[in-house]
């Protein structure tokens, strides 16, 4: 009985819903479009298996990559090597060495007002994260870790400045020493800012470069100011 009713209603409503069969995408329609497979674009080192190579080669290759990026920072020319394959090893090494050198002489000294290891570490990473978020918010087209990588690698001139400062401080701490340190730190601060700007500015909308550069400037300024005022206990 129910079946008969359903059938009758179905016949009556048939024309109404006749077009509905076309709505569904059936599997008869072929998928169109081009799927181009880049043939021959495999570079030889992609096929190169790294499974059975000596550990020394692996480490050397990574070290070479880090070293190459150091060179890029020291000669900041327009290059995307720092952006393309980012890594955080270089920033980690730079940050740790800078923090170690900035660590006041005696940790248990009561009047040790010098920056602690953790403080330097936090300033560098927190500052880099803030700059990155700022550039993302301003409409930058750069990924989070690329920006962190660039900002971290661009601490390199400042680490060099810190090394020089410690050497100068070994010689003595008079007015001449301060002037030498001031010049070195200022030069390296300018270098860091210019290098990071050269790498990061391309990813920003052209009318907003000043807004992105300001926090970078502030970030390196604080670090270089910490380096300048550092005096071993």
């Amino acid at each position, binding site marked *: 009985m129910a*079946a008969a*009713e*359903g*059938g*009758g*209603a*179905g*016949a*009556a*409503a*048939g024309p109404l*819903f*006749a077009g*509905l*069969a076309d*709505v*569904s995408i*059936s599997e008869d329609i072929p998928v169109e479009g081009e799927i181009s497979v880049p043939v021959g674009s495999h570079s030889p080192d992609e096929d190169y298996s790294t499974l059975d190579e000596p550990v020394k080669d692996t480490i050397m290759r990574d070290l070479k990559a880090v070293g190459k990026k150091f060179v890029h920072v020291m000669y900041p020319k327009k290059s995307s090597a720092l952006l393309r394959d980012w890594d955080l090893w270089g920033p980690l090494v730079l940050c740790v060495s800078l923090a170690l050198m900035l660590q006041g002489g005696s940790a248990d000294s009561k*009047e040790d*007002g010098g*920056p*602690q290891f*953790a*403080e330097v570490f*936090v*300033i560098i990473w927190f500052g880099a994260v*803030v700059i990155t*978020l*700022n550039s*993302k*918010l*301003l*409409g930058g087209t750069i990924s989070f870790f690329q920006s962190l990588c660039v900002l971290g690698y661009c601490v390199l001139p400042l680490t060099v400045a810190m090394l020089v400062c410690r050497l100068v401080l070994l010689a003595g701490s008079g007015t001449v020493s301060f002037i030498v340190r001031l010049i070195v730190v200022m030069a390296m601060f300018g270098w860091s800012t210019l290098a990071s700007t050269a790498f990061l500015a391309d990813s920003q909308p052209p*009318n*907003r470069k*000043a*807004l992105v550069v*300001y*926090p970078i400037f*502030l970030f390196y*300024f*604080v670090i270089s*100011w910490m380096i300048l*005022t550092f005096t071993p206990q």
Partner: protein
Amino acid sequence: VSAAGPPSRPRSGAAEWGGFEDNMQGGGSAVIDMENMDDTSGSSFEDMGEMHQRMKEEEEDDGEAGGADEEDGEFLGVKGLRGQLGRQVADQVWQVGKRQASKAFSLYANIDILRPYFDVEPVQVRARLLESMIPVKMINFPQKIAGELYGPLMLVFTLVAILLHGMKTSDTIIREGTLMGTAIGTCFGYWLGVSSFIYFLAYLCNAQITMVQMLSLLGYGLFGHCITLFVTYNIHFHSLFYIFWLVVGGLSTLRMVAVLVSRTVGHTQRLILCGTLAALHMLFLLYLHFAYHKVVEGILDTLEGPNMPPFQRVARDIPVVPNAVLNTTAKAIALTL
């Protein structure tokens, strides 16, 4: 039933969604199906997802049960349409639900939501920085406040850097904490805390202002603080500081007060709101200039007693008025330690 026809299935309650393989002609009870769909689609999209899943399972069940039962041929057609429609509607609702869910997710997890507040040009920022020092005496018409956070955020970070510099040059030692943490905590605490407090007051006093506008207003108000502190941390003259405090700090405070007055109705409300804001803003500048010495002294006195070696720091004569305030602050902090 034709040989190529779809497998029939038991007509049970569970098979109401069935017959997905067949797209058929005609079907009377499709309308009823729609109603069923509407009933369920009234609930949240999770239910739709569940339904979608259930439909898929039933589809498989139907396949297995194929040929197990014999029924009327024409009835299969009806079933087919019902299933087809049901699936389409469910799919559609599921898609919409998924889109909404992902939108809601990105609302919370993505920083895109903040992007409108950072949509500025350098020229605009410069203009707003200058405007923050120019009080406009126009209280009959609500003044415009840009709901923008780039300038305020950068000013707060600048203030943090200046404060670090000030702490360092005055040989401030903070126990159980770092200079950096203290500076960041002070600046952000002031910005966010006072903004929320004034926003709350504004809500009570019926002022027309949103939270973002409040943050922007107070953030740009910190420009005067930045200038004052940057100059006076480097040039130690007390008269200079008081001049700066009154002129630069006063101008930026006046600007904020003027804006708030223009957006509030009623004398009492205006007095409460602007008095609170002006007092907090001016006292904060005094605090930043004088505080850390006194705090450190208080803490060290309590902790170490009198046999502490003298500090090497720039001698400053602390004026009488903030002294009382700061002494209490210092004692309070010393007590908490």
